[in-house]
């Protein structure tokens, strides 16, 4: 136990927590922005096509961004250290597209600003798994338990307010379907953090994990798209019909990945019980995009506005309370015990596990560091070419939107990107 306590100093622990918290807020901004393209569903594009194209954007981003930041050689190094995590990554990847497709059905049935907070129950699910499977909040003290459980209760109240608002605005049949879809998406995404946390406790770099994750993701989404489109030929025909908006959906996937990467770092450095609620501030960003850019609540009664805004703020306050209950030294020791349990179970080098926990894997990697290879640049160029090609044939969707607000929100997201990127690089070299 003493050896574990000494493994990460108090100062380093505080630094990593600051990094994790900032990444959580950055994730919120980018994940919220990524949901905006799903508004295209209103143009008559089938939900599974929207989801497939977002996943294609995610796939491109999840191979090109790690190649650009660290090089594929580093991904291979991680794979050799903990090969079992490939299975976990693919399994997590299978969960994501099912959840994403459900959210698109939910948006169609109950709207973005209402569906969004409902699927954010994923944080409650994440807290549950964090406590029961990974020793999170163990030996954390009564104050932290109160903050987390109180925050969870606030989030539940906020979700109920929003569900009530949805039931008063749409036909009951659609409300039940939309709410069920959003809640199940939350359960899927909350459970998806089980493989994530397992990977990060074991020491794997988030950029490596998401690269394998995306294989399961793309395969599952392709199967879903074929099944729900009525076969390959129908799918190809529908893709052809949607070619002028392909770019926006790919872009949505790309933006989502940036948020997701920050979310992974948050989960790694502050745990899933705190990292997920923090990144769920995407609810507020989604609300801002929905109201200010797409005028979602325009023309509705003041009572509904108050209900939706009040519910969202209540949920966000709950998330904030959870996030601000910092990890104590004793709790971190319990994390390390869980990490060493994983290391023993899968025969992973303890040096690898420990360096990953302390965000210093780059020290180990530097011994075998390889410069970026031609393959890395090839991946980056190929992904860029696809985006340029899609941009060339796209047109601005015929959706009523306030582009000034869109530019302002985009600029704020870029500020988060710069801040999180710099802090991650300085503290961990993207470890």
């Amino acid at each position: 136990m003493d050896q574990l306590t000494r493994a990460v100093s108090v100062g380093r622990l505080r630094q990593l927590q600051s990094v994790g918290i900032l990444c959580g807020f950055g994730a919120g901004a980018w994940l919220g922005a990524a949901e905006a393209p799903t508004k295209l569903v209103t143009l008559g594009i089938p939900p599974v096509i929207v989801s497939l194209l977002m996943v294609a954007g995610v796939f491109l981003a999840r191979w090109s961004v790690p190649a650009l930041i660290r090089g594929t050689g580093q991904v291979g190094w991680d794979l050799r250290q903990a090969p079992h995590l490939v299975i976990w990554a693919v399994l997590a990847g299978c969960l994501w597209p099912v959840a994403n497709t459900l959210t698109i059905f939910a948006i169609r049935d109950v709207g973005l600003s209402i569906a969004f907070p409902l699927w954010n129950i994923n944080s409650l699910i994440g807290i549950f798994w964090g406590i029961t499977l990974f020793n999170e909040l163990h030996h954390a003290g009564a104050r932290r338990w109160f903050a987390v459980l109180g925050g969870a209760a606030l989030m539940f109240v906020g979700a109920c307010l929003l569900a009530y608002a949805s039931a008063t605005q749409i036909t009951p049949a659609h409300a039940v379907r939309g709410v069920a879809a959003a809640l199940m998406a939350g359960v899927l995404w909350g459970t998806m953090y089980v493989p994530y946390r397992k990977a990060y406790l074991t020491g794997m770099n988030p950029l490596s994990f998401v690269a394998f994750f995306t294989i399961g993701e793309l395969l599952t989404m392709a199967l879903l798209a074929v099944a729900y489109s009525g076969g390959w030929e129908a799918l190809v025909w529908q893709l052809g019909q949607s070619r002028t908006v392909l770019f926006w959906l790919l872009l949505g996937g790309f933006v989502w990945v940036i948020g997701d990467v920050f979310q992974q770092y948050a989960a790694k450095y502050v745990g899933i019980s705190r990292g997920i609620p923090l990144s769920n501030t995407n609810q507020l960003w989604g609300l801002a995009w929905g109201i200010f850019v797409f005028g979602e609540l325009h023309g509705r009664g003041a009572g509904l506005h108050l209900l939706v805004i009040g519910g969202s703020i209540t949920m966000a306050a709950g998330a904030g309370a959870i996030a601000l209950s910092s990890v104590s030294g004793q709790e971190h020791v319990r994390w390390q015990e869980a990490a060493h349990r994983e290391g023993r179970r899968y025969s992973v080098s303890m040096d690898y596990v420990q360096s990953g926990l302390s965000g210093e894997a780059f020290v180990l990697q530097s011994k075998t560091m390889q410069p970026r290879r031609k393959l890395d640049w090839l991946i980056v160029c190929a992904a860029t070419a696809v985006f340029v090609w899609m941009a060339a044939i796209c047109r601005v969707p015929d959706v009523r939107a306030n582009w000034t607000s869109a530019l302002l929100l985009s600029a704020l997201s870029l500020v988060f990107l710069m801040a999180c990127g710099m802090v991650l690089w300085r503290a961990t070299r993207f470890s």
Partner: protein
Amino acid sequence: MPDKSTGRSRAAIHSCKMLRSRGRLVVLSINSTGAHLPDDHAEIHQRSMLSAVLHDSHFWIPVVVLFMGLAVLHWIS
């Protein structure tokens, strides 16, 4: 965790027992890091890895939730 008496990982030993039970001869000189292993040992390592994943109770939680999600998707679509 390496076994104190043999210095081998539990997962590797478990895998060896599995192979012996099928009547195969296995040389018990396993490097748990998996580096530079002959083909037979690489196979053992791979089997032990898969076995460890399948015996990890955590693994089945996302699997069950995945099927629940597919069921809901089927219902609403």
